[in-house]
């Protein structure tokens, strides 16, 4: 019974959040502005949790997450615009968006992940800019800088259930993966790739695997974005977007899934909440960032983590 304690807490929390959002939306308790944030929150959680796997668990700095998102967004948008009924088009778009992003992840990952150090950061940064230029240039398909317009609004708050399930799925898959032999291999590579090789872990394979799975998830988030915003412009996917996602992961405490979720929520909602403060907005935002950073490095946090680990070890017997 105790063994499933965590899963039960997770399920209850997921159901409670779902019920709360449904009540708030249907009861008319939310302003228009807040309603418009519901889907972006879910989308950013998907992006942050997936990037958390690469940056936090694999320990590789990827600055191209927005690029994978954009590939998912454009390929998914083309399917959404194809005229298929939404029930078929939306799942298909999400799947295709994910697969296209994953394929590009594979293409970029295979050569680059063999390199060590900061090469990945620089290459993914360059890759992101290249993708942006391609979308800008391929006007007949993507609408170029003017944007890909009239995407059916299939992932607005009215379709919250679908997006929410997608988000839960991503969280579940990533947290499951971490607690498995594949996850241990990925973390071992992060901590010491020479030792990881020496205990028989195929380093390049597992790096690529984590990278491709994360790209797949970012691609799915891209489709959610497309169906939410209705128009896609290449500028929306520049490195600023990648950095924003990275900030969520870093604030979440690198390799902490719950942290990434909370940070993604706060960093999506906070800027909107602070709008009323006008001039003080950036100041408060910056202070909030610093406060979260301080908490991450505090002895209090370390103590909590140690306690958690001890409890986990107690269960092994």
């Amino acid at each position: 019974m105790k063994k499933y304690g965590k899963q039960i807490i997770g399920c209850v929390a997921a159901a409670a959040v779902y019920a709360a959002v449904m009540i708030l939306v249907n009861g008319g308790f939310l302003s228009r502005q807040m309603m418009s944030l519901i889907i972006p929150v879910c989308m950013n959680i998907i992006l942050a949790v997936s990037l958390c796997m690469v940056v936090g668990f694999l320990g590789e700095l990827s600055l191209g997450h927005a690029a994978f998102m954009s590939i998912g967004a454009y390929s998914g948008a083309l399917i959404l615009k194809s005229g298929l009924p939404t029930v078929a088009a939306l799942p298909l778009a999400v799947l295709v968006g994910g697969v296209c992003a994953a394929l590009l992840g594979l293409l970029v990952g295979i050569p680059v992940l063999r390199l060590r150090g900061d090469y990945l950061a620089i290459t993914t940064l360059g890759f992101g800019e290249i993708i942006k230029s391609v979308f800008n240039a391929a006007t007949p398909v993507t609408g170029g800088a003017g944007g890909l317009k009239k995407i059916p609004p299939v992932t607005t708050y009215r379709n919250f259930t679908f997006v929410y399930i997608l988000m839960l799925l991503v969280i579940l898959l990533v947290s499951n993966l971490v607690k498995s032999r594949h996850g241990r291999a990925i973390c071992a590579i992060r901590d010491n790739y020479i030792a990881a090789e020496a205990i028989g872990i195929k380093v390049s394979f597992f790096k690529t695997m984590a990278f491709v799975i994360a790209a797949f998830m970012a691609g799915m988030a891209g489709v959610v974005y497309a169906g939410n915003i209705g128009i896609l412009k290449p500028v929306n996917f520049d490195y600023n977007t990648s950095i924003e996602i990275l900030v969520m992961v870093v604030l979440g405490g690198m390799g902490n899934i719950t942290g990434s979720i909370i940070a993604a929520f706060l960093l999506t909602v906070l800027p909107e909440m602070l709008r009323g403060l006008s001039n003080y907005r950036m100041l408060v935002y910056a202070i909030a960032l610093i406060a979260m950073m301080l908490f991450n490095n505090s002895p209090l946090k370390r103590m909590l983590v140690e306690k958690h680990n001890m409890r986990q070890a107690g269960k092994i017997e």
Partner: protein
Amino acid sequence: MALLEVKNLGISFGGLRAVDGLNMTIEEGSLVGLIGPNGAGKTTVFNLLTGVYRPTDGIIRLDGTDLVGKNPSQICQAGIARTFQNIRLFSDMTVADNVKAALHNQISYSLAGSLLHTPHYRKKEKEIDGRAMEILRVFELDQFAGYKAANLPYGKQRKLEIARALATNPRLLLLDEPAAGMNPNETAELMETIKFLRKEFQVTILLIEHDMKLVAGICEELTVLNFGEVLCQGKTADVLKDPQVITAYLGE
């Protein structure tokens, strides 16, 4: 047939001949020492045996299979495990996870199992937990299972590295200065552990060590390296009496 056969092994770094013309055979079940002054090329031999470096010439055979050109993870799967002179643990992972990571190829299941936590995954993970604790118990590390590896005291980190190497179920275990930084008590304890695990895991051991008490106490045979070349090879007692070894390494 010998478990490990090394013939005319050599490697150059630019102009430096770090290892030259090394011949060595290790019989199954034996405990062999590799000694020599600082910079003699001992660690380099380990790096050659485990595929970290590719030899410029020579042959390495484990139980008849050629290992040259294989990468470290393939060589581990072929049956050679090692520890490192400057400890390389997975420092942000728990003590238990360090060993469980090394069971990666021993107790296996699919990626789908990992993502979905299927019943098969649960069964295998239970096996992994059990095996990891079994190994940790041998090294009296079981009560530290939940500690972050980086938080272990130095002597225990060395032990954990050996535990992790053994988890890969090697036929040949390479220990690079296992007693470095240990006090005499810890070293004595380590000697007992090495003797014990040799029987318990039926593993052949090649170890590098500067602590001559440990070397004389447990090694049956020795190879002495000096400037990358073999100075002397044979039964421990004979090697330690060899005048050349005494001048080049042991002193007086």
